[in-house]
């Protein structure tokens, strides 16, 4: 159900940028920390985009691995290894990658230029 609300937000963002043009491809960048299940998102995207200009658009999902950086000593690690506490100095980790939930680009149809 998480993917339902995410796909609604995606479709809203896409329609805003499509500005009335039919959308054929939607490219997303989704960080590991968003806990989005790709198949589930594709399923709900198909559902939510029905009867909109996104209907039938191909959904591309680029997965972004998570990366944390220590606020104290600047060392970096994967949160799968140590979550949000630095293994070197014990400082708190800041997310530098993996929080993305981004519409990267879209492909739209435009009438051929007749000039």
């Amino acid at each position, binding site marked *: *159900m*998480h993917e339902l*609300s*995410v796909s609604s*937000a*995606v479709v*809203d*963002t*896409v329609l*805003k*940028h*499509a500005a009335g043009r039919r959308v*054929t*491809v939607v490219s*997303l960048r989704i960080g590991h*920390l*968003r*806990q989005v299940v790709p198949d589930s998102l594709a399923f709900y995207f198909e559902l939510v985009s029905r009867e909109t200009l996104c209907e039938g658009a191909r959904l591309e999902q680029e997965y972004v691995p998570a990366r944390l950086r220590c606020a104290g000593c600047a060392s970096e690690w994967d949160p799968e290894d*140590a*979550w*949000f*506490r630095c293994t070197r100095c014990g400082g*708190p*980790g800041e997310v530098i990658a993996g929080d*993305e*939930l*981004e*519409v*990267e*680009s*879209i*492909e*739209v*149809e*435009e*009438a*051929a230029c007749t000039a």
Partner: protein
Amino acid sequence: MHRVKVRVVEDALDANNTIARANRDDFDRRDVTVVNLMSAPGAGKTTLLERVLGSLDGVRAGVLEGDVQGSYDADRLASLHVPVTQLNTDPGFGGECHLDANMVRSALPELPLEDIDLLVIENVGNLVCPAEFRVGEDARIMVSSVTEGEDKPLKYPLMFRTCELVVVNKIDLLPHLDFDLDALLANIEAVNPGVPRMLVSARTGEGVDAWRDWLLDQAAREVPA
């Protein structure tokens, strides 16, 4: 007809966050502190509110009660003589499992913002979607009860790492459970280092004073200019 690629590079939640900022501005203008209370269903959000809302030492509180349907929680809080506004996600919002900024915005005209200092938004019980949607709050509170299992912070890290306080509720049940409290606290610390934690039993009243004090402290904070 030809196809054109349009570079967008926009967070899909930008639209929500923009509305959330507008809500926050409206709350700030009226000097209302707003907390977003979140948890799994049945963790004790409403009981925690019942415990303190009637005794907030001059701080005038109000509640925005989010539910998919019904007004069961709002009915429980009505006896405390604080203004409670019901916000159902079922009619008009498709039965959403969370509150988002736009739903809260739609409820603003019904909130007595001039007459309160503290607004508690009780979110829909759910550990996943509410974490994604800011609603214009100053602080987020996560209630985790000891009947839920000590691994919850690791299973739902987004929720646990985006909150400013974790209230561990139902501690009166600890003697009856095979629950490793230290493991829960370590898991909270792992996903949100340094986040304040509170051990409470809304049923017996243990720890409730600290919970009340935390709310009073939030309400006393100056709105940043």
